[in-house]
């Protein structure tokens, strides 16, 4: 089937809001090439479980597509039209399984050496969309915070090397009560600008007590879900005929209830957490990977105004099968390795924050937990500088803003 043959009843299997959204824009979808539409439908089908920022962006994108003239459609999607698809891809049920189509389409692009052409087409499309539908500026300057090195008593290697060119390195801060000061500051921002999913707290271990208005995700709280996932994977891996791609497809189809999550309350956050575990590589086994990936996905999807990420020590490396299936009661932790992981994770958090709107006004702080070293990036701080000024974490946030 090709997109021009799309009809509203074909979206009856979508969740209610997604079905309505697709039907509303069916005439826009019918004009687009098959090399493009499934990746759009992959987002549409998840509409009911998307964060507000994602919903808004998707609706604006669809609205723009509907407003394009035939000439503009030709101009915008000409490069996508040139992508050659196989008859096998065309025969897939890409309406009801767009993610599966995209997965196989990716493989097709690699195998047929069309990846660069697709990249160029996609980049061009993104640039055009950005020009026509620029994202809204944030309601307040964004703040990112990373807390690294939990449990490390001494570390003599330089920290924050990748971030230092962009901010001020502080060496004489007072660490006492630092985490609480950071949590208080995040809570104050959430109270001042109460928007759903706008203020996040991600913890790679067990979350500290925090304000109820924060959206909180922690590695510790997902232990039952991780155990359920491991058990399901163990069963599936041993099933005859199971391969890595089939397993990946199966993971992508998991829902909160499959992992003992789907309790009444927050279906959007539950779905987000399931995706962290089923789509993130290594998030099931290393808490540092979990924290970094959770931050990345929160920034990409929810576009929060505030994000505090506290990294925690991960377990030591063991064979992958043992990490997945092993006895978690005998976990041995790698404190220094986790600090190295988190140091780079903090850099990635900052990079990802800077990809959002309002980057020039945003601030970022990374603190070596329990120690007097931190780095702050902000509009009023000069990059590549070093300061021995005394102060606490509260003061540091003020300097960074």
């Amino acid at each position: 089937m090709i997109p021009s043959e799309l009809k509203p009843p074909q979206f009856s299997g979508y969740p209610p809001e997604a079905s309505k959204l697709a039907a509303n824009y069916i005439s826009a979808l019918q004009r687009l090439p098959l090399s493009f539409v499934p990746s759009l439908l992959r987002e549409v089908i998840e509409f009911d479980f998307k964060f507000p920022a994602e919903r808004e962006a998707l609706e604006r994108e669809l609205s723009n597509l509907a407003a394009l003239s035939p000439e503009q459609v030709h101009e915008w999607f000409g490069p996508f039209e040139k992508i050659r698809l196989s008859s096998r891809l065309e025969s897939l049920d890409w309406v009801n399984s767009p993610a599966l189509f995209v997965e196989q389409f990716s493989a097709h692009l690699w195998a047929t050496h069309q990846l660069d052409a697709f990249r160029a087409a996609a980049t061009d499309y993104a640039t055009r969309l950005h020009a026509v539908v620029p994202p809204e500026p944030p309601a307040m300057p964004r703040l990112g915070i990373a807390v690294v090195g939990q449990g490390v008593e001494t570390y003599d290697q330089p920290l924050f090397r990748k971030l230092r060119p962009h901010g001020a390195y502080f060496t004489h801060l007072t660490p006492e009560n630092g985490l609480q000061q950071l949590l208080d500051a995040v809570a104050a921002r959430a109270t001042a600008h109460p928007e759903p999913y706008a203020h996040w707290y991600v913890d790679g271990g067990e979350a500290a007590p925090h304000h109820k208005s924060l959206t909180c995700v922690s590695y510790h709280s997902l232990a039952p879900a991780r155990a359920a996932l491991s058990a399901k994977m163990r069963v599936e891996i041993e099933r005859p005929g199971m391969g890595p791609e089939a397993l990946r497809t199966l993971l992508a189809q998991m829902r909160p209830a499959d992992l003992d999550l789907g309790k009444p309350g927050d279906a959007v956050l539950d779905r987000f957490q399931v995706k962290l575990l089923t789509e993130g590589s290594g998030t099931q086994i290393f808490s540092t990977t979990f924290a970094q990936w959770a931050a990345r996905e929160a920034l990409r999807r929810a576009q929060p105004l505030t994000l505090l990420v506290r990294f925690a020590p991960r377990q030591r490396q063991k064979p992958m099968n043992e990490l997945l299936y092993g006895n978690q009661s005998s976990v041995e932790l790698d404190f220094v390795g986790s600090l190295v992981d988190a140091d780079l994770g903090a850099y990635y958090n900052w990079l990802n924050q800077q990809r959002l709107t309002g980057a020039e006004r945003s601030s970022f702080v990374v603190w070596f937990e329990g120690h007097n070293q931190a780095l702050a990036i902000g509009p009023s701080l000069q990059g590549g500088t070093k300061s021995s000024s005394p102060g606490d974490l509260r003061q540091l946030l003020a300097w960074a803003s």
Partner: protein
Amino acid sequence: MKAHYSLHAAPEGFRIAGDSSSTPQERARQLAYRRRDFLRTAAGLALGGSLLGSSPLVRATLAPKKRKVVVITFGGGARDQETFAPEGQENIPHLMTELIPQSTFFSQVINRGILGHYVATASLATGVYETFNNFAAVPPENPTVFEYFRKDLKRPASDAWVVAPSNGFNRIGGSSHRSFGPSLGANVILPKHLLTAATAPSTDYEHLLRDNYETPLYTPQLGGGEFELQQLESILKLSVDDFKARARTLSSPDELSVYVVRQLMRQVAPSLLWITMHDIDIAHAGAYSLYIDGIRRTDRLCADIWKTIQTEPEYAGNTTLFILPDFGRDSDEDSGGNGFQHHRTGDALSRTTWMMALGAGIRQGMVFDRPLQPTDLVPTIGSMLGFSATLSQGSPISELL
């Protein structure tokens, strides 16, 4: 296949990256120049060019039938910032101070194929961009270097060997091509498989049995051609007990591979030996410190193999060593990926790598910037050893001949 793009419902900065100011070719060239500059600064190497033609005198001293070639794939791919960039050189002290000064270095090897480890390594071995499913236990479709070598030069099976750590590589020794095939292929040793066969379930060896990180949850079934356990004794002159005892002292799958390689060189002395390293690919689990550990270990093991080449009588003075990654990893700047963790974006950094050649017939301390492709390796080895890689897509590298 793993390649994922956020075309939709993501903030602008998270869409497919693209430095609109330069083409992929320009970015690859910039990478190469930067790598060349790093080397020139750090190792005092000379820039090669048109003044440096081939060296028939050097070549004439080597009788073709005695010459040996060893290929090491610098396993799992590593980026410049963790290797050849100033901040990364601390991770590769052996390459920087011991091997590169003795080598001819190519700073721009561009992989235009599929960036999956098995299919990319198979492409290296055939000189053709293979397009099979990376996760399937299938042989390459085109003749491998081992088949050309054995067929053209009428060499016995004992003269071509592959040592690979991942079970997924068990079919790489011979192709499915009807004019060649496994009967003309290389022996393949999978040390992890060997260790599994040699040991009862025990925690003593788990650190050496880590899985294929690209598909950490799944290992293809082995089928045909693998090195049999009883050959440990008959060919490698190793008792199962000695093998187990030695394995207990090693810390990673690649260390186990190099131990087997040394034994193979000493007992069998094959003329064509291919070693696939893989420890670095732990990066897929997202723990940066483990990725760095993998690079440092691989650096050390490459130097160990070079020392073995220089000290083993069958190899000393008549062996050419090639070291090259199968491909790189995603850049931090490409929002379609997650930095070092994967190689999914197909960006310039993940496609552009390097190659060094050292030993018999190779000029020392040379750096060449012109773009090569990994498919050039097989015809180059063919020119060195005296066989013709008729179906290869690549060309012999004149600077090495």
